């Protein structure tokens, strides 16, 4: 989806952003803006659904980390929905598993209690 924005939906009271097939240096800056806006607009907590995403480079991870830090500053957190093996592996190998809470489905992410990670 070239040049598609990153629409923010509100589901069960939480902002949810769905990331495209590839998150890399070409769209990470826009993703970052969308996430920071979503984090600022809600009560701090937001959900990023990466279940469609097949590629995420350092720039993409940086966008997620920035948004998570901002969410934490507002007493919230960024909840990641990760299902694809490619992205799960990237998160494991870069040591982010212990940093950003992740979930196996959107439903879990929406209903979870704050993880306090």
């Amino acid at each position, binding site marked *: 989806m070239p040049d598609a924005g990153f629409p923010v939906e509100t589901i069960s009271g939480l902002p949810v952003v769905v990331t495209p097939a*590839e998150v*890399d*240096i070409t769209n990470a800056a826009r993703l970052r803006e969308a996430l920071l806006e979503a984090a600022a607009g809600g009560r701090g907590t937001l959900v990023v659904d990466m279940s469609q995403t*097949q*590629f995420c*480079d*350092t*720039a993409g*991870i*940086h966008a997620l*980390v*920035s948004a*998570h*830090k901002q969410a934490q500053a507002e007493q919230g957190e960024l909840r990641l929905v990760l299902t694809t*093996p*490619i992205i799960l*592996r*990237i998160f*494991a*190998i*870069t*040591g*982010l*598993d*212990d*940093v950003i809470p992740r979930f196996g489905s959107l439903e879990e992410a929406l209903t979870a209690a704050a993880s306090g990670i």
Partner: protein
Amino acid sequence: MEVEGGAATAVNSASDGARLRDIQSITDAALSRLDDRELLTELLNRTRNALRADTAAALLLDFSSGQLIATAAAGLEDEVRQGVRIPVGRGFAGRIAAEHRPVILDRVDHTTVLNPILWAKGIQSLMGVPMVAGGRVIGVLHVGSLTPRQFTSDDVELLQMAADRAAAAVRSITAQADRAAVTALQRSLVPSALPAIAGVEMAARYIPGGGAVGGDWYDVFTLPSGQLCVTVGDVAGSGLPAAVIMGRMRSALRAYALESTDPAEVLSRLDRKMQHFEPDAMATVLYAVFEPGLDRVHVALAGHLPPLIARPGQPAELAPIRPGAPIGVTFRARRPVTTVPVPPGTLLCFYTDGLIERPGEVIDEGLGRLGQAVTAQSPETACIAVMGALVGSEPVRDDIALLMIRRHEERKADADA
């Protein structure tokens, strides 16, 4: 050049023709053949003539200081020679930049203009417009008259046209200067010549992605104890900003390396420093400290990929090093340290993700390709094999840093310090 305040007395058709020529002089395609700095000066000359003004000057915004700096001038060269600086929001030029709109002054003195050169010169009237690129003010263009004069809305329009042209030229100058600065930075920070260190042989490659430049680096140094230390890192982002952060991280890590031989402690200190001074930055870093005698290496990872290890006669494998959080992510990170035996003849391959990541692929596929290409041979031969197998003739999408270190086959008596 001379003051020709009489343009307003010309009949309409003649003045329309003159105005068309004025516009053409500023939009002239021939200007594009000049190099950018000449273009800026020539544009100021033409603007001054077209507007029958006496002075013209361009001040560019320095984003780090929030000041406008006199960069090019016609009839007002002292402004540039003396390096005039005007804070945004103050004085004539500062107001234009802050308010993002044209300003005309019919009285030029210390109450309206900050820069004494302008009143000392005897300028009576001033007109200035913002230079805008990518939606941001990047500078101010102004013209002045030594005789009192009422600038018209047509004059403002013509000056704005010149400012738009100048903004495009400045953008290109800035991009060129950034590229030159980054290249110089990288040459000094990622030296192509590696230090000679007893007991090991080394080779490296550095390829900036997509012809641009970035924040990948590697570093090799010894501690006063003689212990060999290796760093590989990748700052998120690109261009000069990433390269500048990379430079700071590289030297901070060296400083902390002198204070502790625990790689995790060094990364924690680096992380604390980065989160305090560069709170928006994120980076992955690998830091490895060899024992004296080189028998083992202690490695800590901050979000970075583990090295590959190839022992003589065995296929290469991903060194089983426990992951740790990247730099700039969390204050609580305590990263594990993994100790890896390094028998004589072993080759270690350190790299950044640009070498192995391809869209639509699990990272293990790239790691697999790398593992096949790496064997316990001379580091230079190994670099050639890896670059050939993983990069080949594909255009490089991301920065690549690659560093190979091989322990000599036979123990060197002089290796233990």
